[in-house]
């Protein structure tokens, strides 16, 4: 079995992102970049599947600028076998990302595609579902447990009502949630070894995309600030304050 894992390069989750003064975007210069945390979990799951002997190849893919090679190298060091970078400096919206991944699927013919349930930069939570629809294959989103049984997979999904379990035939797209696993740390020898693993770079223009209609990002602003910060002395003062607001 071959597994395709998508890795997006995003601003690290510990960074407090700021909007640029002119409202043209968010400040990313000199900011720490990482693999989208959900994608790291997707890759960890793929590696565990391979370690159990249920898969024999893991391909990681990213769409973005040349610098994405760093995140792909980290993915190779974690345990992926090969990497593909579709290079572009443009901001890629989910529909185009899904189109690109569909092209990669046509070339690679994976049995399973593992993705993050959302990218923590755009917070869209769309790409996996769009890809599954275009590929005309099942989707299992927000996965917290994946059990493979040959031609199908049982997936437990974190939904608002609790935990839902569905069964999907393979190939399928599974998008992963935080509680699926805890990704491993990469060790130095693996980083050295990963430098020799194949990383294939192709320009976006080679992918033969259709005419996707992008949305216009017309301006960015900082969120409204809450007027917090007040402290109360003790429980009695808290109860008083809440009574005054008519909350008790």
């Amino acid at each position, binding site marked *: 079995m071959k597994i395709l894992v998508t890795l997006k390069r995003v601003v690290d989750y510990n960074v407090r992102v700021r909007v640029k003064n002119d409202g043209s975007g968010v400040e990313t210069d000199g900011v720490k970049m990482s693999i989208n945390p959900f994608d790291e979990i997707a890759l960890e799951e793929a590696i565990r599947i391979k370690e159990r002997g249920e898969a024999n190849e893991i391909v990681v893919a990213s769409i973005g600028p040349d610098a994405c090679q760093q995140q792909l190298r980290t993915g190779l060091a974690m345990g992926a076998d090969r990497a593909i970078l579709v290079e572009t400096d443009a901001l890629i919206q989910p529909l185009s990302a899904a189109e690109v991944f569909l092209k990669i699927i046509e070339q690679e013919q994976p049995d399973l595609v593992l993705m993050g349930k959302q990218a*923590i930069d755009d917070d869209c939570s769309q790409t996996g579902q*769009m890809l599954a629809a275009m590929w005309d294959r099942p989707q299992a989103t927000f996965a917290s447990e994946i059990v493979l049984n040959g031609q199908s997979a049982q997936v437990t999904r974190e939904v*608002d009502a*609790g935990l839902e379990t569905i069964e999907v035939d393979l190939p399928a797209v599974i998008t992963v949630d935080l509680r699926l696993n805890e990704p491993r740390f990469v060790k130095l020898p693996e980083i050295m070894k990963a430098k020799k693993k194949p990383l294939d770079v192709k320009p976006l223009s080679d992918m033969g995309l259709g005419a996707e209609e992008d949305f216009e990002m017309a301006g960015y602003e900082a969120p409204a600030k809450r007027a917090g910060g007040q402290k109360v002395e003790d429980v009695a003062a808290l109860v008083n304050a809440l009574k005054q607001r008519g*909350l008790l």
Partner: protein
Amino acid sequence: MSKVLVIAEHNGTDLSPATAKTLTGALAVGAEAVEVLVFGHDPQGPAQQAAELSGVTGVKVISAPHFANPLAAQLAPEMVAVASGYTHIFAPSTTFGRDLLPRVAGLLRVNQISDVMEVLSDRSFKRPIYAGNAIVTVNVPASSKPILATIRTASFAATGVGGSAAIESIEPQASAPTHTRYLKTEGSGGEGPDLSSASVVVSGGRALGSAENFEIVHSLAKKLGAAVGASRAAVDAGYVPNELQVGQTGKIIAPDLYIAVGISGAIQHLTGIKDAGTIVAINKDAEAPIFEVADFGLVGDLFELLPELERAL
């Protein structure tokens, strides 16, 4: 001339409050017609409740036995079959809507707007990105049709009742794919109000230390008639089930009163509560970031303060 379709969310008998909130977002578009689409296995209750929401001009029902437990792979082709009649298709940004709508977008080959927090016009919307650290205005080009969006329910009040729209049944159009099969849902089904729509929420964090200790959060919530929530750390540690998680990857809520107990206030948690009316924080670390957003902060040991608070009520 806009015509909006809202996808109803329900549990088979009752419409979820998310639907009435999504409807408020739909009405903000200024459309001449706002219709509600109800999938299910003979979902009479939800269809009737949808027809009574004010502003609804029509209700469509698509019923089939296999819609009893909705799966995106089954519903999306049905939505494509009805989509051509509408300029906008909205769903709540719950796990139901977030799973389904992008699949419809993929079939229609259009982009989609997630988590609309403000409707500026029929083609211009605001939404949060970077865990709510920035807000972006998204303009949809005229050629992108229809406009698909999930509505961030915490940003919109529920529309009232008083409508009496006609209910129409439509036959399912698409053959159901067999590649995806529903097996089961396990929920705590706990008593007390629903976290997503409760007016008071008491949440506990890692500091509670165990499921047994978390009992004092449940106890305070009971006294207040509140729903119970939790930080990711508390869920990961197994103190409470996953559906109680509040935040970027849990539930985004807007109660009148939110009480955060032993929660540090990580950005991913704060994303889930920024629209709360009043925030109370109880934490022993006076420097905890939760205090920056709390209207009333109380510094001290939760194991002393919580029982004291409960007695004072």
